[in-house]
């Protein structure tokens, strides 16, 4: 079973496919952050990309999230080859199909929780009313239905990350990419976030969690380990 094809036995379509991806940063000497990565993420999956810092997992996340482009190789999102897309098309693809959760939350301080979540639909061209309705539903889903109008500064770390998760799911993306989502949280709060992500996965969301925390990774159904810019064969850790 090769990582590039995943598990065809399930019959699930691939949400994301990395096909021989290299990412080299220019310089002297050039830094080879990714060296021939093949990876397939199927619809409905929940997986951890785990590795120590400097292993290339952040670069991998950026490539998977189309925030960075491979130097060589292809990234397919739901069958669409992203290497030839313009900035405009790529941005559109992000707004429609990808949801991001960051370690540092990236909430806008002057906006309420509701408006922060609604911002997840800002570039979808829907009206403010629709955005707010959908944002409220998303906040209720993450258990913050009673804090709709709170500013981020009035929320705990765990609540802030829940707001960020609500923002990531509000557009109902095909794939949620979470970068160290528990990195700024204490263990108990972090566990709550992992439970929430697990719940969302059970409800059908496809989720990739990037982490250096092996313990966290172990709680997820599938783990992929990154070392020195390559993905280790699964089951050989």
């Amino acid at each position, binding site marked *: 079973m090769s990582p590039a094809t995943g598990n065809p036995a399930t019959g699930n379509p691939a949400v994301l496919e990395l096909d021989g991806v290299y990412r080299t940063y220019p310089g002297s000497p050039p830094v080879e952050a990714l060296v021939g990565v093949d990876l397939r993420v199927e619809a409905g999956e929940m997986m951890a990309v785990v590795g120590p810092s400097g292993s290339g997992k*952040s670069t991998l996340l*950026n490539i998977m*999230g189309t*925030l*960075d482009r491979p130097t060589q190789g292809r990234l397919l999102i739901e069958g*669409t080859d992203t290497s030839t897309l313009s*900035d*405009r*098309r790529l*941005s*559109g*693809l*992000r*707004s*429609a*199909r*990808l949801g*991001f959760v*960051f370690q*540092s*939350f*990236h*909430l*806008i*301080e*002057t*906006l309420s929780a509701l408006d922060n979540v609604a*911002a*997840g639909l*800002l*570039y*979808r*061209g829907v*009206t*403010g009313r629709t955005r707010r309705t959908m944002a409220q539903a998303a906040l209720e889903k993450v258990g913050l239905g009673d804090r709709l109008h709170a500013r981020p500064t009035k929320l705990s770390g765990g609540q802030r990350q829940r707001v960020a998760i609500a*923002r990531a799911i509000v557009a109902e993306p095909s794939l949620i990419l979470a970068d160290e989502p528990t990195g700024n949280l204490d263990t108990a709060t972090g566990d709550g976030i992992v439970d929430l992500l697990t719940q969302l996965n059970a409800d059908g969301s496809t989720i990739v969690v990037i982490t250096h925390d092996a313990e966290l990774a172990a709680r997820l159904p599938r783990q992929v380990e990154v070392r020195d810019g390559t993905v280790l064969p699964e089951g050989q850790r």
Partner: protein
Amino acid sequence: MTDRSTLRGRDMVSTSVVGLRSRRGRTLLTALGIAIGIASMVAVVGISSSSKAALLAQLDSLGTNLLQVQASTNGLSIEPLPIDAEPMIRRIDTVQNASAVIDTGFEVRRNEHDETLVGINALGATPEFFNTLQVATTAGRPLDDGLRSMPVVVLGDVAAIRLGISELAGGPTISIGGHDFAVIGILDELPLNPDLSRKVLIGDRAAVAMLGVPPNPTAVYVRVDPDLVATTRPLLAPTANPGRPAKVDVSRPSDLLEARAEVDQNLQNLLLALGGVALLVGGVGIANVMVISVLERRGEIGLRRALGATRGHVRLQFVLEAALLSGLGGMLGVLLGSGITIVYARQQDWVVDLPPSALLAGVGAALGIGMLAGLYPAAKAARLDPALAVSGGVA
């Protein structure tokens, strides 16, 4: 599902407003730079426009139909006006009134033993002088037909101050050419003919008989039909001196006042240019603050890119922020400049005249400067690598 990144126009604006609202203090201070530039420009335009309006209103009340005929001072010799210049001019249909005056050249003294007052001259005038120049006395009475050859005098307002005579109680007299003249009146101001304020008026006959000056008028003041000033003016020289019309000058005193309304144009341009410099400095300030803002907000920019904003959306957001910032400054500036104009005009007893076009131009100029100032920082923001930006680390 369409994979198009679309930002509605309204959302574009509110996104930019959020950016400004989150840094209120800085927004206000930056806008202040623009406000000062716009305020100074609006105040310059407003004050000079109010001043001009006041001057024109004054002209309106004074009338522009007073003409002055006098012997030409061009050429080698001055050819005096004929003795009958005034009656001849009166015969023109469109002339409403005329008065000949004779500059005696005599300077006046408080009394026989005192020094003469330099620049305060005696002027012989016909009784029509007061009606023609439409000037009243603030004290006493004007000269009339019966006083034409009597030793009496009416003082110009400045002459009265120089002579130290402010009231007629006690029967003050002054000395002209060794003769005592009783002061019977003091003239009101003459805004159109300030030179007359420094004269003392005696009867034309008294001037000839007592001071021995030639009876030729040095000037004839002519009040003409207000609607026919232009057609009457060319008739005056040949009528006053049919033999030598070229030796006669005709002028309109109100032209001087009117010219004053235009004379300030150069100064106004200079002040406007200074306001423009302030505006440019304000614009550079905006560019500066926006560049810093872009650096500080890398995280937000990365987030927006992750949420699906195109480079164009990011660029537009920052250009719009700069324009709004500057537009805010422009509106503040227009208010401030209008306020300055109103206060100053009130102090000067002017009618406030704030041209709406200047106010609109103020806000427009601010918006334009803001957009220009925003271009560079916005391009910087749009060029940011989203992967780097998103790890820029803003909580």
